[in-house]
């Protein structure tokens, strides 16, 4: 019996159309728009001005506060303007617009593809390197990685968990990365283990990626303390708390962090980025993005520089199909529809999915029949119908008591609802309001 988390979860159809497409480099666009806020936390503070010329990998905005991240230029060229652009948040945010000229990298970056296995840095130096290189969690949440690598005094970390689950349907960027950059990922994991001072690392991979499991299992015999665990396929296994429960059968209490059960979770993409930062001195300015959809002529996985407009990805995949109804940034479960194709790729963009119009309509809304399917689907033991009703009626204090802030917004409740209730829409609204209320209370 394969390991998985016991409570809730759903089995959406997978449609991993691009799992066999090797990662290709997307040609450089003519201009890029690099957002200064590509992570959770404070936006980085700008270091460049209009008219400056920059090189690929040059620092253009620096870390601003503890939970924040450095931003590097992904191309070489001249800064044409510093303006706002609608990004994945749906609102205008500050971005640095660069006219691309050639592709001249910063001298310190090692561009050879040779594998470097020896780790020469001390643990603190590794954390500092991740901080400098602007490494953030590439699973989608974009939480700055150096914060996770800094274990607060009084807490003990004894296990590193690597998330190779990729439980969202359609997306295959982590899958391809595991197949093509397996050695690099394993070195990256060893680096993370050294930084955290742990002896053991577990890689959790869902069983629908058997080739990746076999590949990494074979390679990991050379690396001390790293084991690969196949997991039963179930959404949302890629969520931190669910993955910990599945692998080591420990539950992270409500409102606490994985560190409270002695574990730290990093994504495989992050492990690869850490390898590149520490061994190759390369900051995080490109990532693998899946461009897919049922009607897309040429879906695939592309290595994309940050700041590239989504439009270029769609063009590379054979253009926008005529029947496109929605363009979703991220996975189909947790992703968000985009309102234009000029939105730039950021560190957290894992995939772009073009849904045909017949699949992107909202089905007719019907009254709740109290079937409790949403409760059985919730992996966190919440009552989605109740939370949604409470926030629709503005009863946020009660929603807080019912633990609305525990919700990870996986969307299993909305997916499973036979009455097509917009459960997650209202829960998200309630959650953000409750968090705002709590913040105000703390200020007082």
């Amino acid at each position, binding site marked *: 019996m394969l390991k998985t988390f016991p409570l809730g979860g759903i089995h959406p159809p997978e449609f991993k159309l691009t799992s066999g497409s090797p990662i290709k480099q997307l040609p450089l666009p003519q201009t890029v728009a690099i957002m200064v806020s590509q992570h959770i936390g404070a936006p980085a503070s700008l270091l460049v001005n209009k008219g400056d010329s920059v090189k690929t990998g040059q620092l253009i905005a620096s870390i601003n506060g503890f939970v924040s991240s450095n931003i590097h230029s992904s191309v070489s060229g001249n800064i044409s303007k510093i303006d*706002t652009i*609608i990004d994945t*948040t*749906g*609102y*205008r945010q500050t971005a640095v617009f660069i006219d691309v000229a050639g592709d001249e990298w910063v001298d310190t970056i090692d561009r050879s593809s040779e594998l470097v296995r020896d780790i020469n840095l001390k643990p603190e130096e590794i954390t500092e390197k991740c901080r400098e290189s602007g490494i953030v969690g590439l699973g989608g949440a974009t939480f700055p990685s150096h914060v996770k690598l800094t274990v607060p005094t009084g807490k003990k970390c004894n296990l590193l968990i690597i998330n190779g689950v990729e439980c969202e349907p359609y997306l295959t960027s982590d899958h391809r990365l595991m197949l093509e950059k397996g050695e690099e990922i394993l070195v990256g994991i060893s680096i993370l283990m050294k930084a955290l001072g742990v002896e053991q690392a577990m890689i959790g991979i869902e069983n629908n990626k058997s080739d990746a499991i076999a590949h990494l299992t074979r390679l990991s015999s050379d690396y001390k303390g790293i084991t690969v665990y196949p997991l039963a396929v179930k959404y949302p296994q890629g969520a931190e708390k669910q993955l910990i429960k599945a692998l080591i059968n420990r539950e992270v209490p409500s409102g606490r962090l994985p560190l409270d059960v002695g574990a730290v979770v990093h994504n495989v993409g992050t492990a690869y980025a850490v390898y590149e930062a520490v061994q190759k001195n390369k900051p995080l300015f490109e990532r693998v993005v899946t461009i897919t959809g049922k009607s897309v002529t040429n879906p695939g996985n592309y290595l994309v520089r940050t700041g590239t407009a989504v439009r270029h990805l769609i063009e590379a995949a054979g253009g926008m199909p005529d029947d496109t109804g929605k363009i979703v940034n991220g996975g189909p479960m947790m992703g*968000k529809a985009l*309102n*234009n194709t000029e939105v730039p790729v950021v560190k957290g963009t894992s995939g772009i999915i073009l849904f045909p119009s017949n699949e992107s*309509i*909202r089905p007719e809304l019907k009254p709740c029949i109290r079937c409790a399917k949403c409760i059985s689907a919730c992996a966190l033991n919440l009552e989605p119908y109740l939370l949604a009703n409470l926030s*629709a009626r503005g009863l946020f204090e009660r929603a807080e008591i019912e633990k609305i802030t525990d919700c990870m917004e996986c969307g299993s409740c909305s997916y499973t609802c036979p009455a097509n209730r*917009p459960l997650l*829409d*209202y829960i*998200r*609204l309630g959650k*953000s309001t409750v968090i705002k209320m709590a913040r105000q209370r703390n200020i007082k």
Partner: protein
Amino acid sequence: MSPTVVITIISLSILAVISAVILYFVAQRFKVYEDPRIDDVQAILPAANCGGCGFAGCRNFAEVLVSAETFDGLNCPVGGSTVMDAAAGILGKVPVKVDPLVAVLLCNGTPEFRPFTSVYDGVADCRIQHSLYIGETDCSYGCLGNGDCVRACQFEAMHMDPVTKLPVIIDDNCTACGACVKACPRKLIELRKKAKKDRKIYVACSNCDKGGPARKACKVACIACSKCFKVCEFDAIVIEKNLAYIDATKCTFCRKCVSECPTNSIIEINFPPKKPKIEVQAEAVSN
């Protein structure tokens, strides 16, 4: 009568008397004194329980009125001066004159002026749409048109206009309770001082972007060009965050700013049409 019935009647009567005596003493012991004037004041309040006064319903407001030293800062927007004068009469206090207010919408972005750039098919709730993205147009400050304010209004003073896709406020029904102000996630509704004949002059825009992007998103956006600020003789106009604002307490309704505005974002309501100048001269001559 059988003895059972007689015994039952007697024993129950004794029990009743004992309970009555106990209850009487308990009631005396735990009696809560309540000012009888609270009931009197509550009786004249409108019983809308709208919260417009800032307190939890009319009963709460009546309690506050009775215990208050003066009426400063206390006002029932629904009842207005008649109710407040009556309450002052009951309590023997001096009523404070408060200007009546009316709600106005600080957005005039009809589809004609503000073209649609995307289609939103999610939940018809402004709060949710606001949390998701900029909206169906390119203006991140303008009305989303899902009618949260209309649902919040309990005086039937608002309805959505299907053509302009904006809420319409009926001045006669509006009590300035402020429910719509709280409901709007984009803070587009303002309570302004009511003028005679319901006349209004205000900047019907909330766009804080710079002139270029604001104008691109909406043809009637305030571009903060300062023309109105320069023409105003009464210091009633301030420009903050790329947006002009007309102070209703200082405005004298001279209407100079209205004709000066290059984007027509300043609107005048309930004014008679301006007579053409030639006609005025002709009248002067004839007189």
